[in-house]
């Protein structure tokens, strides 16, 4: 195991990784920008180094600077957290070239899974179901039209390099397709420098359900069940839970087996997540693979009792997994809500000075925090300031616990989405487990516009 780890990230996830380091007696090294001098991760690490100005290009994405801090401080490995450099193949390669260990899979696997077209091809070869559509990028709008007529409308027009909903559009006719193809290709070129496009069937009323996997360097792989992450706003998740209230035991097993097939085909080693779209008949289709820790990993930790960060560190240091698939059972139900500094109705960001942060404290309530009660929430980063996770025996009890916790949760000084979260967890469709990706449009927004 490593004796010193650098965390190339910020916010709640940096603090979360430091916590596991402390438990395993690993020295932790934090890096921070000028905007984060007062952040929890800076104080909680054993050593902290200022690496630049607030904007991520000048600090958290500055590879040279981060490598230099790692070497100067004597860190042996770098944990990239999520976002930022976590799925940057060039960074992973550089870390290894410098003689350090990257906590994640090989640069080659990161690059493969980062290209949507290639990821799809790999999964199809592995026998994982994929959404019907083109296996390679279409050459032009004419080919796109032919493909669409072949698989039938509605179809999705997607940029290979797209993300966060950018470069992606549903169309239901050839006229719409022509417009969407050119518009999205142009946007993809502007945003990602890559205009490769592909066409696939649109899955109606889908759920977003993902499988957590762990795989080591010795060929062992296991899955830690699913997370239901369908409730999203602006293509970002808001509430996640495990297990899914929708999946049958049979589908759960099939999805887990598919995820393991993917892992084995790739020769994957690290914690990872295979995201699937699941339709109303429980057909599931590969969406993408995240080759890193996920924001919502705590719900899996709560229902399995496994510390995923610890497992990542053990795998990267060359240890074999000691967990066995048969040892893993689902213990109760866990739900995570993401607390965002934003308006509950418009979802507009609300940076500013926090004047109060009062947290509920009860058995089965877990907090992951990017702020403290007098933090300045800066406009430079993602609006997520905290996560609240509850764990209980059943879904009903977990929702009850979550509702109580949300009513005790107090944030003052800036706007937060607490109002939105309280409305969602008491919404009858949420209570029934009727959580599809259009939940916010179908059930939340109509409810708040009513007088």
């Amino acid at each position, binding site marked *: 195991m490593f004796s010193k780890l650098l965390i190339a990230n910020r916010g709640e996830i940096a603090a979360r990784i430091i916590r596991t380091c402390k438990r395993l007696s690993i020295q932790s090294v934090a890096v921070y920008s000028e905007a984060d001098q007062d952040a929890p991760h800076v104080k909680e690490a054993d050593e902290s180094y200022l690496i630049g100005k607030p904007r991520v290009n000048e600090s958290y994405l500055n590879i040279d600077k981060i490598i230099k801090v790692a070497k100067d401080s004597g860190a042996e490995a770098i944990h990239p957290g999520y976002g930022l450099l976590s799925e940057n193949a060039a960074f992973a390669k550089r870390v290894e070239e410098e003689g350090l260990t990257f906590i994640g899979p090989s640069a080659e696997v990161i690059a493969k899974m980062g290209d949507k077209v290639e990821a799809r091809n790999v999964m199809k070869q592995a026998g994982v179901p994929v959404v019907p559509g083109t296996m390679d990028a279409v050459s032009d709008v004419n080919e796109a039209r032919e493909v669409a007529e072949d698989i039938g409308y509605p179809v999705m027009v997607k940029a290979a390099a797209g993300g966060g909903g950018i470069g992606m559009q549903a169309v239901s006719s050839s006229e719409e397709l022509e417009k969407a193809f050119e518009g999205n290709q142009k946007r993809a070129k502007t945003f990602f420098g890559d205009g490769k496009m592909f066409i696939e069937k649109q899955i109606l009323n889908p759920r977003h359900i993902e499988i957590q996997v762990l795989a080591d360097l010795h060929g062992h792989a296991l899955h830690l069940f699913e997370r239901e992450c369908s409730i999203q706003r*602006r293509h970002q998740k808001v509430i996640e839970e495990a297990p899914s209230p929708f999946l049958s035991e049979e589908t759960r097993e099939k999805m887990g087996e598919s995820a393991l097939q993917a892992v084995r085909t790739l020769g994957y080693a690290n914690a990872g997540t295979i995201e699937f779209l699941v339709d109303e008949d429980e057909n599931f289709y590969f969406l993408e693979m995240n080759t890193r820790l996920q924001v919502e990993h705590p719900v899996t930790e709560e229902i399995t009792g496994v510390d995923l960060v610890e497992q990542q560190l053990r795998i990267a240091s060359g240890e074999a997994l000691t967990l066995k698939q048969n040892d893993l059972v689902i213990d109760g139900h866990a739900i995570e809500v993401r607390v965002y*500094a*934003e*308006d509950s109705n*418009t979802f*507009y*960001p*609300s*940076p*500013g000075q926090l004047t109060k942060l009062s947290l509920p404290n009860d058995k089965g309530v877990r907090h992951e925090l990017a702020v403290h009660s007098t933090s300045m929430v800066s*406009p*430079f*980063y*993602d*609006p997520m300031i905290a996560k609240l996770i509850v764990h209980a025996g059943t879904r009903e009890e977990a929702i009850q616990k979550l509702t109580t916790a949300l009513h005790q949760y107090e944030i003052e000084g800036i706007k937060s989405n607490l109002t939105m979260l309280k409305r969602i967890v008491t919404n009858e469709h949420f209570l029934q487990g009727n959580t599809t990706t259009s939940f916010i449009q179908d059930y939340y927004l109509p409810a708040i516009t009513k007088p």
Partner: protein
Amino acid sequence: MTEIKASMAGSVWKIVAQAGEQVGTGDDIVILESMKMEIPIASEEEGTVKELKVAEGDFVNEGDVIAIIE
């Protein structure tokens, strides 16, 4: 005369309409950036941009006046 106000706190990423320019209802005046999100601030009426109260890079709070349309 109408004051165009910021609908969220953030920094001024881009100025789209310069002082003296003719704008219509719904035309963007500036684009604000905050927490990895870009929000255009549009004119609420037809007229001329009489004055811009902000420059690119400025930080504005919600409700701050961004421009005056006449």
